[in-house]
């Protein structure tokens, strides 16, 4: 008797699809307004506040949360921790999509997006930190694209091309770590140019170091957070290796995140000691700073440690989500809240609803792309026709 295959057709009009569809349509309409009527019609940006949430959220948060790619691939290929191998492809995919969306969001933010390649072809601008950020982001996006291609090539059945790319894995990983170290820190260093505009509790000569160290925490937390979401929604796509290694990845990354958060807390305290900013802790900004430091640094540090000690995945996954939120809070604080703190409230920046709309649109595009890729390509499972690399 021939085998019958039962195909369950999923309904197209799920709540997720409807909400995503509405966001995409609204996002496209705002896109048309942005590129036909300019920044003035769609943003609350001004000469005082030239950087809004498209920089504070889409770029600063996007780049930090995309750090899982270099953190995981460095752990697996450079430090030889092969038990994290199954986590590399999802982390690289998240990193690639994160950086691609950062570049997409930049097209909305800069006044003349067609001039984005100018730093490379018209003038060198090598004295600017923005040049370094532009060069590193462009190069690292290319590196992440090449690192991601084995999955796409396996999906397309292009064995020869895939075997060539796989041979580049170690070189690309080293290149990715170098580029990430450079631009993650440079994004913090950008604010060093405006010491009088940044609140003293957030301004520090160590801003570059803070951004780099916190990006490691962001990467580790994002891998745990994304892994827990993938387990919930794409469990059927995961192979035995992925399911076997997932708990170990979460436990080890939680331990590492706890350790790095402890170090981050110490260097932040040392930063306050160096600038002698203790007196500001009793002010309103000081209370908000303490909320960030105690609530989003020390608290997750403690809960990650407890989760790793007790081997409690529930605590670890919730802490990862909390830490991701903490990274968002930190980048918002540096980019928006502590910046221009001296201005009267009438001059302070609050995003236009269309700015928020574009940010939500960009995140939604990322989620849809992730869903499509994970559903079609061997990200959460090893392709049976190929050896692991």
């Amino acid at each position: 008797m021939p085998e019958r295959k039962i195909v369950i057709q999923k309904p197209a009009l799920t709540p997720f699809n409807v909400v995503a569809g509405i966001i995409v349509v609204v996002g496209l309409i705002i896109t048309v307004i942005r590129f036909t009527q300019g920044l003035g019609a769609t943003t609350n940006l001004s000469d005082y506040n030239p950087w809004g949430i498209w920089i504070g959220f889409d770029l600063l948060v996007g780049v930090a949360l995309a750090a899982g790619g270099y953190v995981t691939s460095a752990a697996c290929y450079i430090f030889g921790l092969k038990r994290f191998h199954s986590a590399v492809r999802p982390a690289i995919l998240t990193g690639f999509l994160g950086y691609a969306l950062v570049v997409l969001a930049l097209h909305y933010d800069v006044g003349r997006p067609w001039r984005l390649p100018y730093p490379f072809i018209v003038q060198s601008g090598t004295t600017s930190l923005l040049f370094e950020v532009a060069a590193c982001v462009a190069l690292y996006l290319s590196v992440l694209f090449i690192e991601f291609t084995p999955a796409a090539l396996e999906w397309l059945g292009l064995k020869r091309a895939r075997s060539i790319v796989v041979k580049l894995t170690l070189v690309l990983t080293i290149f990715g770590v170098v580029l990430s170290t450079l631009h993650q820190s440079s994004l913090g260093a950008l604010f060093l140019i405006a010491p009088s505009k940044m609140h003293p509790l957030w301004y520090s000569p160590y801003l570059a170091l803070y951004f780099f160290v916190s990006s490691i925490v962001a990467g580790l937390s994002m891998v745990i957070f994304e892994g827990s979401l993938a387990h919930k929604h794409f469990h059927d796509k995961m192979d035995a290796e992925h399911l076997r290694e997932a708990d170990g990845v979460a436990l080890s990354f939680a331990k590492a995140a706890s350790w790095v958060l402890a170090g981050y807390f110490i260097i932040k305290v040392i930063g306050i000691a160096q600038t002698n900013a203790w007196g500001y802790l009793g002010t309103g900004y000081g209370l908000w700073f303490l909320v960030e430091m105690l609530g989003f640094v020390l608290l997750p540090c403690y809960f990650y440690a407890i989760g790793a000690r007790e081997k409690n995945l529930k605590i670890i996954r919730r802490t990862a989500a909390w830490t991701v939120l903490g990274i968002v809070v930190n980048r918002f604080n540096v980019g928006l809240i502590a910046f221009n703190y001296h201005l009267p409230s009438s001059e302070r920046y609050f995003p236009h609803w269309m700015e928020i709309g574009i940010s939500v649109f960009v995140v939604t595009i990322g989620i849809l792309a992730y869903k499509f890729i994970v559903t079609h390509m061997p990200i959460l499972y090893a392709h049976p026709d190929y050896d692991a690399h």
Partner: protein
Amino acid sequence: MENAIYTLHDFMLRTESLTYILIVAALCGFIFFWRFLSERDDGREHLGADREEHPH
């Protein structure tokens, strides 16, 4: 007033002294924190454990 800072020397002395004390305290604290983090490990998390497991 004893705590007032009048010169750059006062400032540097105050901030650098405190920074050195904080760094030494943090380094000592890290030893205990590492013990707290690792005391329940089963000894398979050191670098190289994977190489023993995966000879390739």
